[in-house]
C-alpha cells in the first residue's frame, strides 16, 4: 500500500482529503443555516426552527429536500447560458477557496506520505485566496444581468460596484500582516505569530509586535462582511427594496447554490480572519508545565457538552428527541474521551482551537446581522472610499514605519 501511495500520491492522498473536506464543508454549510436561524431567532426573542427534529436539527435536511423537489423555473427572455452559469460560478469559486486553508500545524501522514493538514500549502496562498474572492462577484453580477428582470439587474449592479469598492480596502487591510510576517504563505503567517508577551499574552498579529493590527483587523472584517454580501452590507439582496435582489428569478437548487456560496464565503472569511489576526491553530495558552492542563481542554469541552446534551435530551418534549439527543450526547462524550487519549491529544490541539475561533467569527457574523440595520447605498459607497480605504493606507504606512524603526 505504501508503495502504491508513493507512486500515485494524487489518487491516494489528495483525493481522499478533498472528498472528506468537501463532505465536512457541505455539512457545515447546511448546519450554518440552522445556526444562523437559531441565533437570529434568539436575538429577536423567538425560538427559531423547532419542529423538524429535536431543536429543529433536521431542518437543513428538510430544506435541502424541498429545494431539490421545487420546480426549476427559467424566466422568459433570460440569457440561458449566463443564467445557468452564474450559480455554478458562485458556488464553485466559494468552495475552491477553502482548499488553501491550513487547519493544523503538522502534516498528516497517510500511508507513509507526508501531506499538509488542508488540501494544499501554497507559497502564495493569500494571493490565491484574494484571486478567487475577486472572481466571486461574477456569480452575483451575471445572475442579476441574465435574469432579464429589473430588480435582479439593480441588485447585480449594486453588488459589482460594492465589491469593486471594498476589495481595495480588503486587500490593503491585510498588507500590515504580510509586512509583519514577510510571507504570503498562510501556514508561515500562523507560525510567525508564535510566542507570548510577558510569558502569557499570545503574540497574535492582533496584539503583535512591532505594530498591533487592531485597526487592520477591524478594517479587514468590515470589508470582508461587505465582500461576502452579508448584512449590514447586503444591498445586493435588500428585500425591502429589491424583492430578493440578484436571485429574485432563481428557484429550486440554483437558488440553494447561491445560499451555499454565501455561507461558504462566510466560512472562508472566518478562516482568514483567524489565520491572519488570531494565530490560526495556535493555542491561546503557553506550552509550559504551568499550563499543561490546557491540553485537556478539547477533551473536557467535548465530554462536558456530551454530558449536558444527554442530561437535557432525556427530558426532551418529544420521544424522538429523547432518543436522538442522548445518543448525540453519548457520541460527543465518546469523542471527548477519544481526544483525551495520549495518541490523539497532540493532533487535536491545532484543529480544535482553529475551529473554535472560526465558530466565534461565524457567531459574530450572525450577531452583526441580527443587530445592525442595512446601510443606505450612498452611505455604503462613502464609507468604503472615504473611511475604509484611507484608514487601510494609514495602517500600511504606520506598520511599515514601526517595522523599519524597530529593526536594527
Amino acid at each position, binding site marked *: 500500500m505504501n508503495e502504491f501511495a508513493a507512486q500515485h500520491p494524487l489518487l491516494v492522498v489528495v483525493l481522499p482529503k478533498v472528498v472528506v473536506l468537501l463532505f465536512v464543508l457541505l455539512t457545515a454549510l447546511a448546519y450554518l443555516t440552522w445556526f444562523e436561524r437559531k441565533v437570529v431567532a434568539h436575538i429577536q426573542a423567538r425560538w427559531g426552527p423547532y419542529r423538524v427534529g429535536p431543536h429543529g436539527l433536521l431542518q437543513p435536511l428538510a430544506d435541502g429536500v424541498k429545494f431539490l423537489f421545487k420546480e426549476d423555473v427559467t424566466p422568459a427572455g433570460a440569457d440561458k447560458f449566463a443564467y445557468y452559469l452564474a450559480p455554478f460560478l458562485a458556488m464553485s469559486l466559494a468552495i475552491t477557496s477553502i482548499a488553501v486553508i491550513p487547519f493544523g500545524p503538522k502534516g498528516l501522514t497517510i500511508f507513509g506520505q507526508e501531506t499538509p493538514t488542508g488540501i494544499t500549502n501554497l507559497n502564495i496562498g493569500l494571493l490565491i485566496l484574494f484571486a478567487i474572492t*475577486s472572481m466571486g462577484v461574477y456569480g452575483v453580477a451575471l445572475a442579476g444581468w441574465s435574469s432579464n428582470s429589473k430588480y435582479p439587474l439593480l441588485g447585480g449592479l449594486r453588488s459589482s460596484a460594492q465589491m*469593486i469598492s471594498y476589495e481595495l480596502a480588503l486587500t490593503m487591510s491585510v498588507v500590515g500582516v504580510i509586512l509583519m510576517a514577510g510571507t504570503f504563505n498562510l501556514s508561515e503567517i500562523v507560525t510567525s505569530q508564535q510566542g507570548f508577551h510577558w510569558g502569557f499574552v499570545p503574540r497574535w498579529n492582533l496584539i503583535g509586535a512591532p505594530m498591533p493590527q487592531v485597526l487592520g483587523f477591524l478594517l479587514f472584517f468590515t470589508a470582508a462582511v461587505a465582500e461576502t454580501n452579508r448584512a449590514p452590507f447586503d444591498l445586493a439582496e435588500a428585500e425591502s427594496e429589491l424583492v430578493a435582489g440578484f436571485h429574485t428569478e432563481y428557484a429550486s437548487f440554483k437558488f440553494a447554490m447561491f445560499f451555499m456560496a454565501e455561507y461558504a464565503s462566510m466560512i472562508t472569511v472566518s478562516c482568514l480572519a483567524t489565520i491572519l489576526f488570531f494565530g490560526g491553530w495556535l493555542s491561546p495558552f503557553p506550552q509550559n508545565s504551568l499550563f499543561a492542563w490546557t491540553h485537556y481542554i478539547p477533551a473536557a469541552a467535548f465530554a462536558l457538552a456530551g454530558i449536558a446534551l444527554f442530561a437535557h435530551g432525556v427530558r426532551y418534549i418529544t420521544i424522538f428527541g429523547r432518543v436522538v439527543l442522548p445518543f448525540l450526547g453519548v457520541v460527543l462524550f465518546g469523542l471527548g474521551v477519544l481526544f483525551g487519549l495520549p495518541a490523539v491529544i497532540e493532533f487535536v490541539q491545532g484543529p480544535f482551537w482553529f475551529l473554535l475561533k472560526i465558530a466565534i467569527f461565524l457567531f459574530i457574523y450572525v450577531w452583526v446581522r441580527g443587530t445592525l440595520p442595512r446601510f443606505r447605498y450612498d452611505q455604503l459607497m462613502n464609507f468604503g472610499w472615504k473611511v475604509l480605504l484611507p484608514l487601510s493606507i494609514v495602517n500600511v504606512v504606520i506598520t511599515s514605519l514601526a517595522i523599519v524603526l524597530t529593526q536594527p
Partner: protein
Amino acid sequence: MITPQIAMFLILAAVVVAGALSLIVQRHPIHSALSLIVVMVALAGLYLLQGAEFVAAVQIIVYAGAIMVLFIFVIMLLNAGEEERSNVSRLARFVGVPLGIAFLVEVAYWIGRATAHLGTPPEEMVSTRELSSLLFREFVFPFELTSFLILIALLGALVLARREESD
C-alpha cells in the same frame, strides 16, 4: 514526446485562442466580456506553467477580478443590447481581409523562428521575494515611471469626465 507540462500548455493555449476567437465572434457584449475573462484566467495558467506564481495570481486579481468586473459593470449599467451583423464592406473584403491574413502569417512566422529552440521551463517557482527585490532595487525607476504614466492617464480621464461648473 508529450510531458504533462506540454499537455497543460497545449490545453491552456487552446483555451486562450478559443476564448479570444469567441470574444470577437460573440454578438452580445456580456458574452464577449465573459470570453475575455476566460482568456485572462487561461493566461494566468500559462504564467503559472512558466513558474511565475506571483504574476499568475496578480493577473487574476487585477485583470480577471478587477478590470473585467468594471467592464461588466459598465455593460450592465448601459444595458448594451446585442449587436447587429452588418455586411462586410467592399474595402474590408478586398483589402482588409488579405492584409489581415498576411499580417497573421508574418507574425506567426517570426514567432515560430524566435522560439524554434525552446528552453525547458524552470523547475522552481520564482519567489515573490526575488521578484520584489528586482522590481524595487534594479528596476525601481522604470517601475515608478510606469506608475506615474498610469496616474497621468487617470488624471486625464478625470478631467475629461468632469462636469462643467454651471455658473
